[in-house]
């Protein structure tokens, strides 16, 4: 039996105004898999993540992206989220005045509504998130505060994964979730991510550091340069990269 593809990106060319950023990007991610995407600064990793999540302002000039067999690029960002695409932001955004719990409850209820499930009230929601709070060892007061407002860098990242834990996406894209985390937080967050792995879901983990991949063990590692994947391999590729640097890989 062949595996179910979650995400199929074919020959994707995209950019902003007159700048071409993705230049023929190909990647297929199947259910149950964890893929790591590495690459030099400015090679286009966040751009890819943004395009997958549906951020405005990018022009796709060529290629296709399928999510669970559907044309992903057709969908509005909120529709993608409701269908199970989740982006953990490299720079989570502060939303002053909007309570974190209220925000996440609204998000979860949107997803539930689109699945035809009843919405949760505040009490049911709190019951549901209790375990997830523990999982990520989140400080309770964070949920009483405004979304990301005044959170430390590490708290913001942890909060992203907490949201992921609550929303239970089919496809999670983690954009440099490890940067800015201290070593303890890194372990907690990785444990969290690993626990969220399910046979019917997949993860795309963008990182610069092999360190993260000690905890979140990828099935595949891809190296990106100048808008496309230039090398793919197993988890050893990350080790090789760590030892020899990009130069060596790009030349080989």
């Amino acid at each position, binding site marked *: 039996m062949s595996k179910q593809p979650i995400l199929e990106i074919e020959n994707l060319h995209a950019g*902003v*105004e007159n700048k071409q950023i993705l230049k023929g990007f190909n990647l297929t991610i199947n259910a149950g898999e964890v893929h790591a995407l590495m690459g030099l600064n400015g090679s286009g990793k966040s751009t890819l993540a943004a395009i997958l*999540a*549906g*951020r*405005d*302002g990018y022009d796709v000039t060529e290629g296709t992206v399928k999510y669970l067999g559907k044309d992903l690029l057709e969908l*509005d*960002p*909120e529709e*993608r*989220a*409701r269908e199970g695409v*989740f*982006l953990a*932001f490299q720079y*989570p*955004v*502060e*939303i*002053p*005045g*909007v*309570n974190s719990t*209220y*925000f*996440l409850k*609204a*998000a979860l209820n*949107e*997803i539930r509504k*689109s699945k035809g499930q009843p919405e949760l009230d505040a009490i049911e929601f709190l019951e549901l998130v209790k375990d997830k709070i523990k999982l990520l060892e989140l400080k309770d007061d964070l949920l009483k505060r*405004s979304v990301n407002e005044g959170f430390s860098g590490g708290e913001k990242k942890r909060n992203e994964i907490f*949201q992921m834990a609550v*929303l239970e996406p089919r496809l999670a894209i983690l954009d440099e979730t490890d940067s800015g985390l201290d070593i303890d937080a890194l372990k907690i967050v990785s444990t969290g991510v690993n626990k969220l792995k399910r046979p019917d879901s997949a993860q795309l983990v963008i990182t610069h550091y092999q360190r993260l991949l000690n905890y979140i063990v990828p099935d595949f590692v891809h190296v990106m340069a100048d808008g496309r994947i230039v090398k793919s391999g197993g988890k050893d590729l990350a080790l090789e990269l760590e030892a020899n640097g990009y130069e060596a890989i790009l030349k080989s």
Partner: protein
Amino acid sequence: MSTATDTIESLVKQEYKYGFVTDVESESTPPGLNEDTIRHISTKKNEPVWLTDWRIKAFRYWQTMKEPTWQFVKYPKIDFQDISYFSQPKPKGDAPKSLDEVDPKLLETYEKLGIPLRERGRLAGVAVDAIFDSVSVGTTYREDLAKKGIIFCSFSEAVHNHPDLVKKYLGSVVPYTDNYYAALNSAVFTDGSFCYIPKGVRCPMELSTYFRINAAKSGQFERTLIVADESASVSYLEGCTAPMRDENQLHAAVVELVALDQAEIKYSTVQNWYPGDENGVGGIYNFVTKRGLCKGKNSRITWTQVETGSAITWKYPSCILLGDGSKGEFYSVAVVNNMQQADTGTKMIHIGKNTKSTIVSKGISAGRGQNSYRGLVEIRKSAANSRNFSQCDSMLIGAKCGAHTFPYIEVKNTSSSVEHEASTSKIGEDQIFYCNARGLSTQDAVNMIVNGFCKEVFKELPMEFAVEAQKLLGVSLEGSVG
């Protein structure tokens, strides 16, 4: 990210829900303003001579005044001769003895606006005085209130039934000499609400006036007077809507509040006059003078306003803190979208000792709207140990709108303190996208952010109106992003 800014600016209006016209035959005086017009109004209302004289004095004074120009709003010169100063639905036979006898068309109008007046289906816990153009249609729950000695009726009835109270307090907070539009109002006011809460009585329900302008070419000039006697308390609400018309219509009201020793008055407004279309055609000019006098010791007046309507909003609900230990509060949300303009804020005049005032103003600008906060905090020499806290926050949605702040502070003694905080923020494309990426639509995201911004003000509104206000805000900003 060119499309990002485009989406934020693709501001379209949402249909104004209350823009219908009620098809009733009305009798309006022909446009024009002179002493005869005023005598005509006074005669129509069968007023005592002292009131006619007061109106005439106000009119003569008004004629000596010049329209002010310091406000940060622009509008073509108003032709005061082109306005009809009195318009009422044509009475059918005898005057209705109870609300159930009122012209069904009028009752329907209020029903459509969500304000059922008939005995059955009335809003629970809220007594309503419904003002239609220049006259009061009726007041609900008056008998229940009367049992507690509370007077709640139209201004015209009060003039006849409680002349002493009216005579004593009319113009005592806003004299006709106060300003241009207050003088005009004093000359031509037609109706309004009157409310008196006797000593020691806490009003058991919300009192509310619902203003509706229906007739074309008319202005609405109403007068509200609320007096809370010693240790009395009352919570009062004001709502307003008007049909969509291409012409601008003037609404120049005066509201006076008087709080005696230990009395408390909470006055809340949800203002939703027709704002005009997205090109700025039509809409109400809302030029209103609202002022409260904390006359007695430890009295307290709270103004809460949510201003989403009107082409132009220009008003400063204020407090004169005369009694020692009195408190004045002003909580405001003012929204401008499309071509709307607002110049609003408050004045807190500290005269008594140990007086306190709080100002929380939230201005939201979208479209090409211009929103100004203008506030005066004056602490006089006599007002030892007084305190003020002011917070003025502005939020911008899109790049073509404006927010302006004009705070004036005068402190004349050394034992008092004044604190002023201000901030300006934008709803960023980043914030919207972050919400989208979590499954929330752009409209819901904007509502959530805007409501978060206004939280401190909404929590001052009576419960059910807070919910209304939140919805209203959502409608006013519908389409302002994305």
